[in-house]
């Protein structure tokens, strides 16, 4: 097998980690609160700017800037819920889509106002590792490992804690959880904070690999939605699996043809699959 293909496959897996993390966050929010945060990828953009500003402009240590960025986006997630979602929770789903879609333009414009459209980079260069002739970027490896760690932490939180159990329960029968002493509103806040924190973690990992600019959300936002729909909206395991399917199509397609065409392939695959399995790959 040729080394370059193997390299492409490995890179695909590594890319899949961060996408899977974001798909988890979006699916969690959809499953629990029953809204789609159209501006989810733009929260990641905000987190990347937070890292850039704290590390490059203010000179904070990188780890501290990362931690602060995660907290910042978590708070942003809570604000999105309190200011935008909560007041229109009972209204038609299209209103929620429009409202969070509006947030997307607001965040992009606000970032342009603050930082201009210039591409910015935190300038951290992690070494390239060579393993038996295969070259792997350690930034990607780190991103993959941290994303997986985040996913595992989320899994145990949902599986083992009382609040995590309530989060899973509310996604199945939201009208009855009050009888178990669960206050829906506080579960929504916790879920929004977790969704934000996952976006913040992804922002840290992506800022090691990519420049940040106000429209970076557009480059992977549609990808995340496609992954979530492919896995079945609200199905966290389905989204996790779909992230790796899509990232492989992009990586291998990019190796044989070109990056642009690989995106065309991924979206074609998505459209075809929507005809074959309209409720996602994981449904029977």
């Amino acid at each position, binding site marked *: 097998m040729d080394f370059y293909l193997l390299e492409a496959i490995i890179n695909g897996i590594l890319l899949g980690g961060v996408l899977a993390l974001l798909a988890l966050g979006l699916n969690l929010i959809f499953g629990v609160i029953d809204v789609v945060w159209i501006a989810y990828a733009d929260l990641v953009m905000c987190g990347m700017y937070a890292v850039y500003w704290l590390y490059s402009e203010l000179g904070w240590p990188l780890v501290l800037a990362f931690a602060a960025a995660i907290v910042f986006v978590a708070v942003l997630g809570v604000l999105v819920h309190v200011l935008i979602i909560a007041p229109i929770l009972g209204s038609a789903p299209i209103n929620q889509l429009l409202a969070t879609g509006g947030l997307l333009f607001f965040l992009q414009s606000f970032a342009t106002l603050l930082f201009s459209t210039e591409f910015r980079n935190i300038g951290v260069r992690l070494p390239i590792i060579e393993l038996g002739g295969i070259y792997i970027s350690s930034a990607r490896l780190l991103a993959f490992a941290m994303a997986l760690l985040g996913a595992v932490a989320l899994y145990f939180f949902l599986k083992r804690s*009382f609040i995590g159990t309530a989060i899973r*329960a509310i996604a*199945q029968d939201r009208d009855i959880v*009050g*009888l*178990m*002493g669960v206050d829906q509103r506080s579960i929504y806040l916790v879920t929004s904070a977790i969704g934000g924190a996952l976006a913040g973690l992804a922002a840290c990992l992506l800022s090691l690999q990519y420049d940040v600019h106000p429209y970076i959300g557009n480059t992977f936002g549609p990808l995340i939605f496609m992954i979530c729909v492919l896995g079945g909206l609200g199905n966290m395991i389905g989204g996790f699996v779909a992230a790796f399917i899509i990232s492989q199509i992009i990586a291998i397609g990019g190796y044989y043809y070109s990056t642009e065409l690989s995106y065309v392939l991924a979206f074609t695959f998505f459209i075809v699959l929507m005809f074959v399995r309209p409720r996602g790959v994981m449904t029977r």
Partner: protein
Amino acid sequence: MLSLSAVSAGYGSFRALFDVSLDVAQGQAVGVIGPNGAGKTTLMRVISGLLPLRGGAMTLQGRSVGGLPAHRMVEQGIAHVPENRRLFPRLTVEDNLRIGAFIVQARAHFAEQLERVYALFPRLKERREQLAGTLSGGEQQMCAIGRALMSRPKMLLMDEPSAGLAPLVVAQVFDLVHRIRAEGLTVLIVEQNVQQVLDVVDRAYLLEVGSIRLSGTAAELKGNDFIRKSYMGL
């Protein structure tokens, strides 16, 4: 223990309960019987805080609890086993029981209360890792009652626990009510199965079109001509 005076409630412009007054003493089992659509489930939803009071007052152990939301009523010691059980079908039996212990004062006693519920329903212990949606009807009812007991309530509300179950299982469910009473719990039970519910309760109320029509001890109601004719087919 629980006292309702002149409570009314409804949905939108529809009034489902008119001036309902009802008392449940500590340690008692009280039944509410009546036909379909009489407002029995509405009454339960009002008591557990799922539906707001439109008028009247409700006290629990002397404290006014009218208007508290459902999640606060659980903290006050009320546990509601809802109509149709409403388990979380894609959670395991044990996760369903875990969420029953969600309130802070119950979390600390989770392990010990879980053992008590498993002692009461050994069947649930055998099926602890199974998804609740795959249980049989009787087992689901056990799980729903177990989930309610996990909050360590003072009072248990049961809405139609025998609905949709085979006759043999219905008998088991009423036997469960006996065992729960033996644990010292106060019970308020809504049932269409009049004959059997009058065998397990101390007192009962007859609810018709949103109002209390009759009340008395179980023995009195069993001997009442109107109840015998209309609800027992005797």
